[in-house]
């Protein structure tokens, strides 16, 4: 049975991919993020839209497709996310 992931965990996975696991310098395509984050197109579209509007991801139009890169705010958020994931882990909880 697959592990249940919270919305926060999915956001963390997307930000991790855009920071550490990019295909090239232009950023990650939606298809690549879907494969890495393992969620549906409609759901990732909503999440990406929110992350861009909150300034955590930067969106660029490259080679005819939207590409996503992590922003400086996104890096800060990810750092906080990682720290508080460890914090919540101590209580046996997922953030």
């Amino acid at each position, binding site marked *: 049975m697959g592990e249940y992931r919270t919305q926060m965990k999915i956001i963390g996975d997307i930000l991790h991919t855009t920071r550490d696991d990019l295909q090239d310098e232009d950023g990650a395509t939606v298809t690549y993020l879907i494969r890495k984050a393992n969620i549906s197109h409609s759901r990732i579209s909503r999440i990406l839209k929110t992350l861009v509007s909150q300034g955590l991801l930067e969106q660029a139009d490259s080679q005819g497709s939207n590409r996503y890169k992590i922003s400086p705010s996104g890096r800060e958020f990810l750092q906080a996310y990682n720290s508080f994931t460890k914090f919540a882990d*101590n*209580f046996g909880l997922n*953030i």
Partner: protein
Amino acid sequence: MEFLLENILNLVGFLVGLAIGVMSYIGFRNTGSPTLFRLTIAFLSISGGFFVIWSGYMLEDFVIKSGNIERGIQTVGIVIQTVGYFFIAFSHSIKSFFPKSNYFRSVGILPFFLVSTVQLEHIFRSISFILLVYGAIETMLSYRDNRNKGAVSVALGLALLALGEFLGWYSFVFPESILYTVSMTIKIAGLVALFIPVSKVPLKKIKFDDDLDKI
């Protein structure tokens, strides 16, 4: 001796609860995580509960000087702490804590109006014990998944608080025995065990960011 230990316990409980509560709140502000919000309420309640009891002892020591803490204050502190323990357990997804029937819901609260503060104190101590045992078991089970040693320390802390709560309740049967002193010492050890892994979480570069609330 008991009075001194009681003061140390309540002061340590207040400070540990406040520290973990504030860290949870910073986490909630930075990530918007509902889990961290529940932990914030839990630990600020626990801290508040200990503070109320500590204030009661201080009031007794410096103002009233009757030799015994006001029972009502002690009960209020324990009730506030129980709310905190409930939120820790609730974070582990208690799905059927409250009865579903409206009749049982309305009748369920009735006994609280029929008992004295002494009895109320024991009822809430026993509820705290159950919630702490539940939290300790769930936290220990999570160790199987994440192999995080901090979870063992938190589980041990919750278990020691539960044991302390049980012995504190049991000392009611043997009022002049050493049980109450042992119970308070165990509770202090539990609070320390709870704080050790949390103190190791690196929070140096984290700052508040209001724009992240809507994630």
